[in-house]
């Protein structure tokens, strides 16, 4: 039972990551490869505040979101001006730089040793220790993120994002400052990724740089695409699918470093297969192409 709850909590965390990324991939037509960097920024901010300054979880979460959102400007301000594939490269650079900082700025992050002993989340003083309550918290946050992104997507703001996805030049010709819209979406996306990071850090109580790498970014991209970019339930389905599969592997008995390689192979293969035979993903509408 506790194992199942653990899986569901992981799914919730990845749902937050997937839905926030989908705002950019599915709704705006951008492909940033930097999502894991903001995930990490949220984790480290929240963890360090909790450990060094005793900051309670909710404030840490908010701080993680703010810092992630703010730092996202470092990449979005120049990357969003670039053509689609150069945006991928620019965000890829940011991801590499972020990982390098996590790994080498040992004074702040303890580098590869990671940060241990992060306190479990606490709401107004009451520590949440039981797996049931942690699950409830995770699902709440995931549901909240989903609600936010869905609301944005169906709002007038969201309609402009869709217009940008379809034909940015045309949207500009109608007088929309597309750069500002993209920037706002990017910041929101990064902030939510930071929230996921904060939740993750306080749940597993130990973080290290290896969770926030380029393959992790690609994993979230895969969840979005396989689930169905831009669709209502796609990111959730993608998160469920791609979290369940390696856990399924574990149940069959495959462990150790070979399992990690096999897991990445499966992600990669699913991604390629999806793009080749069903580019709109599991839940997307036929004809939609990310």
């Amino acid at each position, binding site marked *: 039972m506790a194992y199942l709850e653990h899986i569901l909590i992981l799914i919730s965390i990845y749902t937050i990551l997937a839905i926030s990324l989908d705002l950019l991939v599915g709704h705006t037509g951008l*492909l940033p490869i930097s999502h894991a960097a903001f995930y990490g920024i949220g984790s480290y901010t929240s963890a360090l505040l909790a450990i060094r300054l005793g900051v309670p979880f909710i404030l840490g979460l908010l701080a993680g979101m703010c810092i992630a959102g703010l730092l996202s400007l470092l990449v979005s301000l*120049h*990357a969003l*001006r*670039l*053509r*689609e*594939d*150069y945006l*991928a*490269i*620019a965000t890829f*650079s*940011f991801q*590499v*730089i972020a990982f*390098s*900082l996590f*790994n*080498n700025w040992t004074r702040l992050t303890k580098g590869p040793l990671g940060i241990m002993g992060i306190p479990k989340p606490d709401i107004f003083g009451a520590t949440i220790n039981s797996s049931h309550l942690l699950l409830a918290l995770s699902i709440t946050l995931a549901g909240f993120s989903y609600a936010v992104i869905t609301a944005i997507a169906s709002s007038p703001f969201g309609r402009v994002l869709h217009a940008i996805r379809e034909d*940015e*030049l045309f949207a*500009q010709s109608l007088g929309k400052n597309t750069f500002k819209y993209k920037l706002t979406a990017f910041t929101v996306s990064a902030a939510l990724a930071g929230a996921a990071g904060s939740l993750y850090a306080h749940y597993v109580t130990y973080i290290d740089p290896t969770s926030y790498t380029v*393959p992790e970014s*690609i994993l979230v*991209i*895969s969840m979005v*695409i396989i689930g169905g970019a831009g669709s209502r339930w796609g990111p959730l389905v993608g998160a469920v699918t791609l979290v369940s599969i390696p856990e399924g592997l574990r149940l069959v008995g495959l462990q150790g*470093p*070979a399992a990690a*390689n*096999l897991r*990445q*192979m499966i*992600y*990669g*293969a*699913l*991604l*390629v297969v999806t*793009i*080749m035979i069903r*580019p709109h993903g599991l839940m997307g509408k036929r004809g939609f*192409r*990310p």
Partner: protein
Amino acid sequence: MSTQTLLNTLIAASEYALVGLSFAIIYVVARFFHFTHGAVLSSAAYVAYTAKAQLRLPLGLSIVLAISVAGLLGLVLELGVYRKLRRRGATKLTLLVASMGLYLVLQNAISLVFGDSVRVLRDLSHDKSIVFYGGRITNIQLWIILTTPMIFTLAWATLKFTRLGKILRAVANDSELANVVGIDVEKVTLIAFGVGSTLAGLAAVMISLNVDMTPTMGMNVLMMAIVVVIIGGVKSLRGIAVAAMLLAAVRHFGLIWIGAEWQDTTAFLLLSAFLLWRPQRLFGLPLRRASV
């Protein structure tokens, strides 16, 4: 400022330039960032390793085998995946994502079979080095420094004087127009993948003879090569060469002030700086979208 640092810079610059050229050949024709190239690089090295260490073939044959397999892999990727996707109207981004997925599959396959620890290709007893004005350089490193300019010259001559070169330049310049005048763009794309991947095989073998191999060696050097190609300009041989020297210099001379662990960061900061302030790059065309 020692001779050794200078030599190291030259060696690194040659590696970046060669890999960069192999990547650029594919990019100018196919028009998307083919990340799987990193796996092509690694695969070549491991094929050479398998041939020499497991099958006990002589080094020369192993190298030829490795380069051939690399070229073949490039062709297979184009024929089996990218061409099909392009026919269905895939965008640059779609192809990029597919190439990332393919990279994950191939690189992890290598890790599964060979493990993540370092594998050695060279004959450790054969390592000879020459002392040159206070710096030490090994045989293979000398090969790297000498081969790269030769290949660049060969590439320049091919592009400028041969019919194939002109066709390649035409497609790189404007593939639609090239199609209109009767050039078989699909065939040229296939050729580009073949040539680029073969060149990558050569580069990978030389690199692994120098610093041994890991499954991620391909992506590591490809990241630097992408920085070089973007800064230098995809269509400019001169640009790639100069950018490679620049990047290698920044990385190696930077070691005087900053630790080795920050090398990747400095490289990508350099790239970001270029993207931000000088999108015209060193010698190429502007990459800023011509959106009015």
